[in-house]
């Protein structure tokens, strides 16, 4: 890392570890002709300096609305939010010089080159001509876009465009970076590239608010996670805390013959056995960890039940979401099935 200095906390509004974002009771209602959608329904949020908060939720949960309010793009119908102690409505213009926003689309001008985009945004961040040009070179370097710097952005791959978009958000050296679904629509390799770029910002000391519908992504990037559903935060904690809420590890068994399912379930007993008929899968809590796994293998072996697969499975954030909301995220078809069938009382 070269000169990537994120602003030192020099203002009284935010010294180390203090809250950067404070939102209280945010409500946003979108009114159509006949419909009324409560996108936010009393959302509270705090994000501390130097931390990474992942706002996690399915499509339509209100993540983007929340982010748009906090970045001055949208006004809440009720509630109140400050960022760096600045009111997001009254002090919007001052606040804008302290934040960097990257949205769901790669919002760059596709007919300008990467360099021109960065210079334009830098100048609009009120950098001088000279500083904007230097900053553009730095960012192109950091995001591995130097070679493509003087090509129109429309010739870039999806991953390159997203990197340019992220770089654009950083032209003004923001103290808070807000990323709305930064990897939606990217292929896995580009996604990992974006994660690396984002991690680097975090290492450099950025405070980061990130929305995602990918549980894996929140797990990878965020220090703490706030789960959003129907416009409210329904849970908050570290990934580990959230996972421990739904108990420890599980054992997953996939039997070879579907006809063995009932017998297997009876053998393994217990209350919290869940059966997935279609996948021939049985999941049981594994309080004893590996020891319990050995037992299960022995019992099934003794009974002559053929198994295709067996393993200890750590709970994923999908499980957390399912537990918290009673339904699966839209992004996971498999657990979507789980929600509907085979659950033991």
């Amino acid at each position, binding site marked *: 890392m070269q000169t990537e200095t994120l*602003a030192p906390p*020099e203002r009284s509004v935010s010294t180390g570890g203090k809250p950067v974002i404070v939102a209280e009771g945010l409500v946003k209602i979108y009114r159509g002709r006949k419909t009324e959608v409560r996108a936010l329904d009393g959302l509270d949020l705090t994000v501390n300096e130097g931390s990474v908060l992942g706002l996690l939720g399915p499509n339509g949960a209100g993540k983007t609305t929340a982010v748009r309010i906090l970045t001055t*793009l949208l006004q809440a119908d009720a509630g109140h939010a400050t960022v760096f102690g600045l009111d997001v409505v009254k002090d919007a213009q001052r606040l804008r010089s302290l934040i960097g926003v990257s949205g769901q689309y790669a*919002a760059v001008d596709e*007919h300008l080159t990467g360099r021109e985009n960065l210079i*334009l945004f830098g100048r609009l961040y009120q950098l001088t001509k000279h500083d904007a040009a230097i900053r553009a070179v730095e960012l192109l370097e950091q995001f591995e876009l130097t070679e493509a710097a003087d090509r129109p952005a429309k010739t870039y791959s999806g991953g390159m465009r997203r990197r340019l978009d992220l770089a654009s958000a950083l032209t003004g050296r923001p103290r808070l970076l807000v990323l709305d679904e930064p990897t939606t629509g990217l292929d896995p390799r580009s996604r990992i590239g974006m994660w690396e770029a984002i991690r680097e910002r975090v290492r450099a000391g950025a405070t980061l608010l990130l929305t995602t519908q990918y549980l894996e992504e929140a797990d990878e990037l965020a220090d703490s996670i706030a789960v959003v559903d129907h416009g409210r935060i329904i849970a908050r904690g570290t990934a580990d805390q959230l996972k421990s809420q739904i108990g420890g590890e599980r054992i997953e068994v996939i039997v070879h013959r579907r006809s063995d399912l009932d017998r297997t379930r009876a053998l393994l007993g217990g209350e919290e056995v869940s059966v997935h008929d279609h996948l021939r899968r049985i999941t049981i809590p594994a309080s004893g960890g590996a020891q319990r796994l050995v037992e299960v293998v022995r019992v099934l072996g003794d009974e002559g039940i053929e198994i295709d697969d067996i393993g200890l499975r750590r709970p994923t954030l999908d499980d957390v979401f399912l537990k918290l909301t009673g339904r699966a995220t839209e992004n996971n078809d498999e657990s979507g099935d789980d929600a509907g069938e085979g659950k033991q009382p």
Partner: protein
Amino acid sequence: MSAGTVPVAGGGLKQAVTDGWLIAWRHLKRVSRIPELAIMMIIQSIMFVLLFAFVFGGAIPLPGGGSYREFLLPGIYAQTIVFASSITAVGMVDDVSKGLLDRFRSLPMARSAVLSGRAIFDLIYQFGILIVLMASGYAVGWAWHDGFGNLLAGIGLLLLFVFAMSWVGIWIGLSMRTVESAQQVGFTVIFPLTFISNAFVPLASLPSWLRPFAEWNPVSTLTSSIRELWGNPNPYATENFPSEHPVVMTLIWIGIMIAIFAPLGVRKYRNLSR
């Protein structure tokens, strides 16, 4: 440069001008990257010249005589400018739908710059188009006859009209959700406005019930103004205010259009945050 130097942007005229110019610069850069757009626009206007000069022109007698081409070209200039507002509209919708407007709105830039930059760009761009068209017009037999001062006055009036139309386009663009609908609105409004006018035919040829609309139509008054200023044939239809004082009437129209559409556009822009 340390991050502490990030200035707090409060506005101010200097910032408004700088930022507006940056947005205009962005649009100008785009023209150089997609020259086919400008070329198509010029070709479209030239097609109209050819179409009317050679196909319909022979069937359109001018009351009081005079060259049809000299009559036609000022109409073509006016028509091109009016059509351009749909390009403005499409550009605005595109910026909204691609998220670029959100990016601009998240930056500490002058709030006026996105719109004023677009209007400044439209002025520069249409001026360029106009020069090319006037050169082409000159090649097919159009000329101005009343001195350099009047030539400049005519160009000035056309550019003021561009500025007014640009606000119409901005408002349409911010009101529509898709590029297609913006285009559609453009055409359903702009086509009748352009064709029920004296741009291509003398007003005397229109049925009497349609004539009042055509006479007061801003496209007609603009076209008459140019013809009058440049000494091109400008047959009167009726003795009334717009026919007798086309330049004044056109200035009034420009004032009305800006007074209506600039605030509407600004309000639409502000309402993006609602």
